[in-house]
C-alpha cells in the first residue's frame, strides 16, 4: 500500500507554530487553503504525469505504463521466507536479487536481504549474527520502519534461575495483594505472563479480585457497558475475518 501523506497547509494561510494549533489543523474540519474555492480548485488541479501524456503515435514512446492502483497484498502470494526449500520460486528470487543492478535496488525494504546474508551459514551463527548485527552491513542498509508498540522489541532475556522462580512463588503465596503480578514482573525484570506462568494466586485472592471486578462492572453506565460489549463483538468479528 502506498504511504498516505496528510495534506499540510501550505501557502496563503496564517499558520501558528504552536503544537496546539498544529493539531487542530490536522483535524477533520476542512481547511480552506486558498482565499476562494475556485483558486483552491485551480491550485489542486495538477497536470498528469508525463508518461500518461505520451502520444501513441510517437514511436519513441512505445512502452507499457504499469501504474496499478494501490491495494492490499493477497495472502496467496507467499512471502519469500515462507517458501519451502524445495520451491523453485525461492531459487528464482535469490538469483534475481543477486544478479540485480546494485545501483537500482528493489524498492521493498530488505525482503530477501537477510536470506542472502545468512545463506550458507549454520543456524547458530545466523542467530548470533542477527542478535549482534554486522556494523558495516547495518549501516549500508535502509532503516526499518518504526515499531508499532514499545514491547515489540523486547526480547526474552532468559535470565531467571530456578531459585528466582521459587522466590516468585514464595512471595506471591506469602502476600498476593502486596506482591501483585505487576510488582513481581518489575522486581524480576520479566514479562507479566511469565509471572503468571510461574504461579497462580490462591483461590481466595482470585475470588476477591473477581468480586472487585464485578463490583466495578456494576457501576458501569449504559454507555460504557454498550461500548465494552461492542468492543468484544468487534474483536470476534476481526478474528473471523469479517471486519
Amino acid at each position, binding site marked *: 500500500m502506498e504511504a*498516505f501523506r496528510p495534506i499540510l497547509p501550505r501557502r496563503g494561510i496564517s499558520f501558528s507554530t504552536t503544537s496546539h494549533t498544529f493539531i487542530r489543523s490536522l483535524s477533520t474540519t476542512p481547511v480552506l487553503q486558498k482565499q476562494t474555492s475556485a483558486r483552491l480548485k485551480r491550485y489542486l488541479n495538477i497536470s498528469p504525469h508525463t508518461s500518461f501524456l505520451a502520444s501513441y503515435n510517437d514511436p519513441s514512446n512505445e512502452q507499457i505504463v504499469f501504474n496499478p492502483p494501490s491495494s492490499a497484498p493477497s495472502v496467496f502470494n507467499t512471502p519469500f521466507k515462507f517458501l519451502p526449500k524445495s520451491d523453485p520460486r525461492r531459487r528464482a528470487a535469490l538469483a534475481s536479487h543477486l544478479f540485480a543492478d546494485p545501483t537500482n535496488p528493489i524498492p521493498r525494504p530488505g*525482503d530477501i536481504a537477510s536470506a542472502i546474508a545468512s545463506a550458507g551459514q549454520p543456524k547458530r551463527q545466523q542467530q548470533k549474527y542477527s542478535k549482534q548485527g554486522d556494523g558495516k552491513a547495518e549501516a549500508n542498509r535502509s532503516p526499518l*520502519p518504526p515499531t508499532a508498540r514499545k514491547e515489540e522489541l523486547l526480547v526474552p532475556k532468559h535470565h531467571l534461575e530456578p531459585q528466582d522462580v521459587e522466590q516468585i512463588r514464595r512471595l506471591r503465596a506469602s502476600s498476593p495483594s502486596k506482591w501483585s503480578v505487576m510488582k513481581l514482573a518489575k522486581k524480576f525484570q520479566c514479562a507479566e505472563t511469565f509471572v503468571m506462568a510461574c504461579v497462580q494466586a490462591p483461590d481466595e485472592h482470585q475470588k476477591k479480585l473477581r468480586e472487585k471486578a464485578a463490583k466495578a462492572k456494576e457501576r458501569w453506565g449504559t454507555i460504557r457497558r454498550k461500548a465494552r460489549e461492542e468492543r468484544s463483538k468487534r474483536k470476534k468479528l476481526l478474528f473471523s475475518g469479517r471486519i
Partner: protein
Amino acid sequence: MPGSRRTQLRTPSVFLKLRNTQLALGLLSLKLSPGAHEEVTDSRAAPQGPAGGKDDDDINITKRCEIGNYEDNNNTTSYFLHKTNLKQYSAAGTAQALYEDYQNESESPNPNRNGSQFPGLPSPPPHRALESAKLAALHARLNLSERLPLQSLARCLVDSTADESLQFNNTHLAFLGRTIVNYHVSEYLVAKYPRLPMEIVFAAMKGYAGNRALYAIARQWGVEPAAAPGEEVDPGLLQFDVKKTGTELDAAVGYKRKELDKIIKFKFRRGISSRVVFDDEFGDTVSMGEHERILERQALEWRAQQGILSEDEMIQMEDPVPLEIETAEDRKFASYANFSRAVVGAVFLHSGREVAKNFVRSHVLSRRLDLEEMFSFSRPTRELAKLCQREGFERPVARILSETGRLSRTPVFVVGIYSGRDRLSEGWGPSIEHARLTAAMNGLKSWYLYSPGDDVRMPSETYDENAKPWTPLYVDMGEVIV
C-alpha cells in the same frame, strides 16, 4: 463395524475412506442382469463376498476391490477397475438388462415394491426413459457420452426415498460417485494447498462436495423435482420424498462412534485426529439411521424387561436421546446431491475413469471456493510467534508502514510484520492494534495457503498409461499448535 475391511488412501494424508467390500457390493447389485434381484437384498446386510455372484466375473470384481491397496503410491491401477471388467456394462446391454430387470420385477407376486396402499410402481419403469424429452435434454445439456444410456440417467434421478428397491434407485451409483468425487476433491486440496489445517480441509471438502454444493450443481444443471414420486411421473424429474429418511450408504464411509449418543446429548468434544479416523470425509459423525435407533431402543427395552441392564443403559432408559430425524430441507439437499453423485458414478461405469475425473474437474472443482475466508483465529500474534519459533525464523515484530489521520475520527494504519529484515505480511485497520492483528492473521494465512503452483501434479494423474514416474509432493509438518 466388525468383520468389514477398511483401507485408507495414504498419499500425503489424503484421507478418502472407502470400504471396499461395500463398493464390491455396490457393483454387484449394479450388475444389471435379470438375476440381480436375488443376489442382493439389502445394502446394509453383511457383505456376502463372492458367494453371491454366480459367474467368474463377479468374483473377479470383488477380489479386485478387496485387493485394491491404497497404501502403495506407485501402483497405478490397483484401485480402479480395469476397463475389461466393465465390459458387461456396455450401453446396449444395460438397456436390455434394465428392461429385463423390470419385467422380472413386475412378474413377482408382490408388484407393489413400495408397500404403499396405492397400486402401481414407486418409480417409472426404465423403458419410459427413452420417451422422456426432459431426460434427453438433460443428457444433451450435460454433454454426456452416448455410451451412457438414458436408462442409467433415469435411474440416477430415483432417490432411495422414492423407490426402496436397490435395483431401481440410485443408492449404489451415488455411493460410487461419492467416493470418486471425494477422492478427486481431497486430492486436489491436499496437493494444491499442502499446509491447510485439517479443519479447513474438512470445511473445504464440504464446500466443494458437500450436500449443499452438489445441490447447487444439480440445480444449475436444470434438474427439477417431481411433485411426488410414482409410476406416472416423467423419468426426467428428480424423484424423492421429503417425508421419508433416506437409506444412503453413509455408514460405509467412516465408523459409527460408540459414544455417538453422548456426543449428541452432551456435546462431547471431537478432536481433529479422531475426526480423521472415525468420521466421514467432511469430519461429520457417521450417524445411525432412524431405523437402527428404533431397533436399539427396542433391544434396550427388552433388556430392561429381563432385568439385565448395565448402569449406563439404565441412565439411557431414563433419558433417551432424541431420534435424529432429517428435516425436509436436509432431505431435499441430500436427494439432489445424491443425484449429482450418481451421475458421476454412472459416468465412471459407462465411460471410464478419465472421463469421470474430467467430469468432476469441470463440474465440481471448477467452482470457486474462497479458502481465505474460511480461517478464524483465537490468538493470531501468538500463533505467528510460535510458527516463527518452530521454523527457526527471527521473532516477528510489528512495524508501522504508513498511517493517516492519527488524530482524526477515521485514522488508517498500515502495519507490517517483520521477521528480521523480511516482511512477512501486512494489514490495515483503524487502530494500530487492529492493524497489527490483521497483519498477523494475514501472515498466518499466507503460511497456510502456500501452494506449489496451479499445475501441481495430482496422484491420480499417474493412472495414465504413459504417465511419468511419480515425484513426491511437498508434505508439510502440520499446523501450528498454540
